[in-house]
């Protein structure tokens, strides 16, 4: 966009950027605040980061978050990969399958979370880690599916024909040609699914069961007792991890080959 041509383009952009990022900057800044009261600045310190490292409930929440995110992202990526390969050739109901797969992007999460809770309770499924991994897997699938699908669409079928022509059967072709070409898309999908799971509050909150917390659930319960610099520090760490991972996935998705 040429700022010469449209008046106030620069001002508008700056305003939107500020609107989006000032809260984040404030959060990060206060996470380095020495004062016990989160909203009063005294001087810079790394105390709070030190504390969250040794706080056992934060450690266990972080561990749970990590276990759930890794398991759910792995399962979602495998399912998304299979789905992407299956919907590659158009078949009857192919469009519908894709729509169903991507449903979690549109459905209100609160409704799905409540529905899942009701289902699990009525089926007698024990709430906790297993239930959370299952639910997270479901809503992570579209996040894993979209980059894989985009990558797959970008791979010309001629490469696979060339592999067949050079005596590789279907399995060998998948292993030696399709999968290596698809790999950046799979990694990008996994990373997005991982971040989505790590970030999730609603579903985790409903399905956690007694005594089990994830980081977002911990932050929510801690904040009811008042905003502390510790919370700023955890949030800042999560923010940085998420930004790094999403950037990584973006980079992988655009990787030439």
């Amino acid at each position: 966009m040429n700022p010469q041509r449209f008046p106030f383009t620069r001002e508008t952009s700056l305003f939107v950027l500020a609107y989006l990022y000032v809260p984040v900057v404030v959060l990060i800044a206060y996470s380095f605040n020495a004062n016990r009261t989160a909203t009063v600045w005294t001087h810079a310190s790394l105390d709070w980061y030190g504390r969250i490292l040794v706080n056992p409930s934060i450690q266990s929440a972080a561990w749970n978050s990590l276990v759930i995110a890794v398991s759910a992202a792995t399962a979602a990526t495998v399912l998304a990969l299979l789905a992407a390969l299956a919907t590659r050739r158009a078949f009857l109901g192919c469009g519908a399958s894709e729509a169903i797969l991507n449903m979690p992007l549109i459905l209100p999460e609160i409704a799905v979370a409540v529905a899942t809770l009701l289902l699990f309770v009525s089926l007698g499924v024990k709430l906790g880690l297993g239930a959370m991994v299952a639910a997270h897997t479901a809503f992570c699938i579209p996040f894993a599916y979209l980059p894989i699908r985009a990558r797959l669409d970008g791979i010309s079928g001629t490469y696979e024909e060339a592999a067949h022509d050079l005596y590789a059967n279907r399995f060998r072709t998948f292993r030696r040609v399709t999968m290596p070409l698809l790999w950046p898309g799979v990694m990008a999908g996994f990373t997005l699914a991982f971040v989505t799971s790590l970030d999730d509050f609603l579903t985790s909150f409903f399905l956690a069961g007694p005594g089990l917390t994830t980081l977002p659930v911990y932050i929510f319960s801690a904040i009811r007792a008042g905003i502390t610099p510790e919370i700023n520090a955890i949030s800042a760490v999560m923010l940085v991890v998420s930004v790094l991972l999403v950037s990584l996935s973006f980079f992988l998705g655009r990787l030439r080959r």
Partner: protein
Amino acid sequence: MTQASSPPAVSIRNVAKSFGKGIYAFRVLDDVSLDIGRREFFTLLGPSGCGKTTLLRLIAGFETADSGAISIEGEDVTARPPFHRPVNTVFQSYALFPHLTVEQNVAFALEEQGMARDAIRKRVGEALEMMRMGSFAKRKPAELSGGQQQRVALARALAPRPRVLLLDEPLSALDLKLRKEMQIELKMLQEEAGITFLFVTHDQEEALTLSDRVAVMQSGRILQMGPPREIYETPTHRFVADFIGDINLLDGEALPGGGVRLEGGTVLSAPHNASGKVTVAIRPERARLAPAGEGALEATVVHSAYLGTAMLHKLDLPGGGTFLLRQSDPTEAAPEAGSRVGLALPAEALRVLDR
């Protein structure tokens, strides 16, 4: 050329292929039959969309025929998947694996065939040397020019020593100069490697230059098949005559017992056993200039172009239509533009074709 004792390199029997279903069905190949001899350079020539690629893909095994049979060196491969057919393809887009180096690309088929490591290294080295790509072995395809990718694609397809090499317009992505160079190289390569080449092109000049035999295709059928000279000099269809080289086509009606009455009323003496509407075809270099009033036809000179080795005259016929005449001795006196001349059309140079 075909040996009577051994079966042909490729034999195609009554192959038909349609795409789409029901009312959308579209017949791309219609009862195609042909035999390609061992070590032959055979070319499928035809305009874009006539079914050349489809025929090649049927032989490679990427498509299955609706009916008919395909065999390679006497073995019926009609039902075999591409990875069980002793043919290799040079794709129009080259289709080099972007994640593998040049050397890994060339080794791919050999590895799939379970060849020993040392033998693979040796064979890859030879194939790359033959294409003068030895110093690029460690590069990725994206780091090569179009011409270099072309060589790697050839090396990759030749390394497993296929019975037949299928080439789908392999030179069409190259610029003219490189294209001419690669044409000569391809021809030499084929003679050296002693492999049957099935070459696809829509460029008639390329087809005539390279091939032992050419099959001219139109709308999913083979119209004429033969050595380049035969195709050029004795076309059997109006389409073939028109598609290959410059030619003059004069419409008329066949007279019983020989001769053709042109639309202007002139009667040409041309041997034929046709009847009804016909076209008389004559190449620009086979017609001769004659003094006005002599010759079979009268014409007016519109324009003359000096080509160095010849003069090309563009003439207007009185009944409408233009006539091209190539005067092979440019030092001969040339008629002025606007002057009236006669055209001598030797009977043996005339081809009478059905319309």
